[in-house]
């Protein structure tokens, strides 16, 4: 079917990753008390961005699974 599903997933996760990283870098550290002192936005944002990038790469090369 025309559209490779990995492309929209890749875009979505990359955008979410970038948003979380940016917010994590700028936000007041006090809000991370609830997440046990971990800057979860920054950490999880990086993981989401990496995952999004991998999906985009696979989707663009059209690798068969």
């Amino acid at each position, binding site marked *: *079917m*025309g*559209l490779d*599903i990995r492309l*929209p*997933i890749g*875009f*979505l*996760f990359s*955008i*979410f990753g970038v*948003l*979380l990283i940016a*917010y*994590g870098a700028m*936000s007041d550290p006090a*809000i*991370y008390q*609830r*997440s*046990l002192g*971990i800057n*979860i*936005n920054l950490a*999880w944002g990086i993981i*989401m961005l990496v*995952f999004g990038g991998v999906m985009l790469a696979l989707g663009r090369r059209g690798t068969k*699974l």
Partner: protein
Amino acid sequence: MLRTIDWTIMIVYFVFVLGIGAVLKRYVRTSTDFFLAGRSIPAWVAGLAFLSANLGAQEVIGMGASGAKYGISTSHFYWIGAIPAMVFVGVFMMPFYYGSRARSVPEYLRLRFDEKTRGLNAVSFAVMTLFSSGISMYAMAKLIQILHIFDAPFAWLGLPQAWIFHFSLVISALVVLGYILLGGLTSAIYNEVVQFFLIVAGFLPLVYLGLKNVGGWSGLKATLNPTYTHSWLGMGSAHTNRLGVEWFGLTMGLGFVLSFGYWCTDFLVIQRAMAANSMNSARCTPLIAAFPKMLFPVLVILPGLIAIALPRQDLTGLAGTHAAAAVRGEGLVPAKVDASGKPILDQDGEVQLDYDLATPNMLLHYFPTGILGLGLTALLASFMSGMAGNVTAFNTVWTYDIYQSYINKTGSDAHYLWMGRMATIFGIALSVAAAYMATRFNNIMDMLQLVFAFVNAPLFATFLLGMFWKRTTGHGAFTGLLSGTVAAALHHGLTLPQGGIPGVKGGWLAIMHVYPSEMAQNFWTAIYAWTTCCLVTILVSLLTRAHDEKELVGLVYSLTERPTQRGLRWYQRPAVLAVVVLAATALLNIIFR
């Protein structure tokens, strides 16, 4: 509470959901494109959609609630109540569903048995899906209200807070309507896959933080009573475990009758496999889904366990925070309160807990602004994909099995495509109506769900006999189904769970047996229904004229060529996947015994 970043994440998601539909629109030319995604979906995509279609509201919120209530035994709903059936449908049943080229499960019944069996199944299924999607919508709107998601924007716009419920209902209905109208089943499947990854992305950090906080699995074991952290402890008797069921009722009732009845015959999930691009992909669809399914207890059940394991604390800022409720709760699970704000007590004078808030409160407790938006988006996504799954199954059954079979047999393909889009519109409109019915008449909804349970319980006996015994006849199947349903109703009418009041809980005829729990009663209702259906079907089949064997080629096991596995790599072979997933599930049961 929610800030710009949270809203941005939510809005980006909604734009994507509709965007996928818009991109797919140009590929929808025939009714097969719309209803069966042109039978072009790769195995892994179909597999994840197979899993996600079932991952609606009941799953994410309900499993967290059960985790808080019953502990790790809840994973029986996955390891006993799903995996074996998913393996069975992939390895043994898919060759007939996919190979017969039937476009729906009721259509398979038409090919194998006769018109009346199809009609019975199609009509009951259509009604059922509408109500489930309505209940899903209702639960979502309720949750949005409880979590105060739209409170701030409504206050800012000067709109009354009472409209939040209506707004949530309408907006979710419109989004689902939008993307299904545009892209049909492909759109629903693609969004289900996106939603699968989103759920993992939203809940994995939650479980990580929660586990870290309570000191990991060993910390949970140290804090909680052993009945919470062992899945098989005390299963010898219904009175010595948290579920209130003994091992036989659990494995036969849940593991065999209910689980096989759902995963092997429910068109909502089977439709995803029917859309696969080849016979082998269709067979692999449920097997691929079984791998994440096996691990999902970590994501959906553990949050509930963690919520109950935390020390009793001030729940201000979380959901369900009535002053009294906050004091009397357990961990992050608040007490249920009545209209005056007093905690509700059960018969033993214990405070009743509002377990449904366990998972939502975990999100609010651990997630700061930013990732909170992601977590809530994942939650909303799960509601919507559950709804969309029901709607796509409904529009197909309506168009092929009701409209084309009984109302207009001679329409063009373009006409049926148009009818599918119309069915989507009125299907969603009826779901909204059902959602409002749920707000007004809670009892009617409970009763309807009960009736559906009666109708569903015997189904698997019919399919099993139909696929594996060529002598089964249409009359046999039809009478078997009806008598199975009657047996379920009778059993329910004659038994009662402990402490239940005769009525919708059972015992409305007489009380012949009292079960230790509602779950035990449900499982045994299913066992009786299945057995009755099986016996009656065999009996009536032997008394009626057999089908001509030529008509049954491709529909019955003994008359169908086995699909070949030659030329496939080891990881593409259904048999290999089946053995691996079953072995891994057995291992999990041993680890968490």
